[in-house]
């Protein structure tokens, strides 16, 4: 619609109506994920610099229970598979299956959070703080709490959204697109862990 007297932009615009070919809800989620990815890129970039600049750095296997961290990684990957199944079911209009798998994803995500809470508690009991730790340079624990904390808060938000979506699916109110957009967010949380796990815990 054009205002009388104002230049009609659509006369000059020769581009497509929907150049990305996705609904706006999905596009907005993608844009949000890009900005969020840059937040984590900044964290990991800063971590890399501080680690390189530090004369010493703790051996991760001496600090973290690697079996437990591996289990957490397996759990998060499993939640991505259940979420993808939920999205597939929602596209097929199989709302019962979609609800089951969304709920399963929430439960698996909550399990990840519980394991992270145990990991934090153990490290805090061993003396880790934001400003100091028993293993060496203070930034080690600062980056640990900051990076895993931000990631954990994303998981927590995801679990809440998954629970709400499961309830909406039960009432027949959630759409396939809504489940897909939520799926994008959940898979992003997994992608971020794909970077955190090797860069912070392994290398």
């Amino acid at each position: 619609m054009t205002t009388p007297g104002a230049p009609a932009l659509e006369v000059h615009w020769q581009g497509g109506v929907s150049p990305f070919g996705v609904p706006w809800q999905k596009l907005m989620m993608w844009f949000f994920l890009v900005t969020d990815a840059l937040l984590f890129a900044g964290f990991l970039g800063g971590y890399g610099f501080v680690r390189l600049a530090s004369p010493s750095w703790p051996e991760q296997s001496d600090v973290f229970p690697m079996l437990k961290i591996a289990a957490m990684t397996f759990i998060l990957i499993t939640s991505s598979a259940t979420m993808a199944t939920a999205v597939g079911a929602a596209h097929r209009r199989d709302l019962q299956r979609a609800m089951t798998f969304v709920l399963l994803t929430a439960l698996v995500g909550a399990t990840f959070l519980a394991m992270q809470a145990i990991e934090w508690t153990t490290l805090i009991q061993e003396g880790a703080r934001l400003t100091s730790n028993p293993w060496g340079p203070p930034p080690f624990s600062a980056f640990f709490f900051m990076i895993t904390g931000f990631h954990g808060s994303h998981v927590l938000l995801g679990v809440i959204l998954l629970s709400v979506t499961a309830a909406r699916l039960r009432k027949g109110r959630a759409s396939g697109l809504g489940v897909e957009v939520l799926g994008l967010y959940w898979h992003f949380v997994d992608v971020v862990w794909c970077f955190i796990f090797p860069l912070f815990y392994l290398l």
Partner: protein
Amino acid sequence: MERVTPYRTYWILWVILLALTTIMIVTEGAGLPRAATMAVVLGAMVTKVTLIGGWYMHLKFERAALIAAVVGGTFATAALLFFLIAVDAVAMLRMAP
């Protein structure tokens, strides 16, 4: 773009992702040279991200414009961010006693 992927695909991917994670953990504990460990672990990391982005997030089935905006935009901006951090990092390392 609406595209229905078979459920089986998601679970095959799940097995591959678990296998890649296992490879990463085993490699890290195998006592290989640092460069070899980094190559394997980082290679597995990039493969995992590509699989999740491509199939679970359906980027493989989206238009090239969206893939370029999302993937290209993220990596280009992150590269700029790292470059700016690196400039400061090198300067601070030179100033260190």
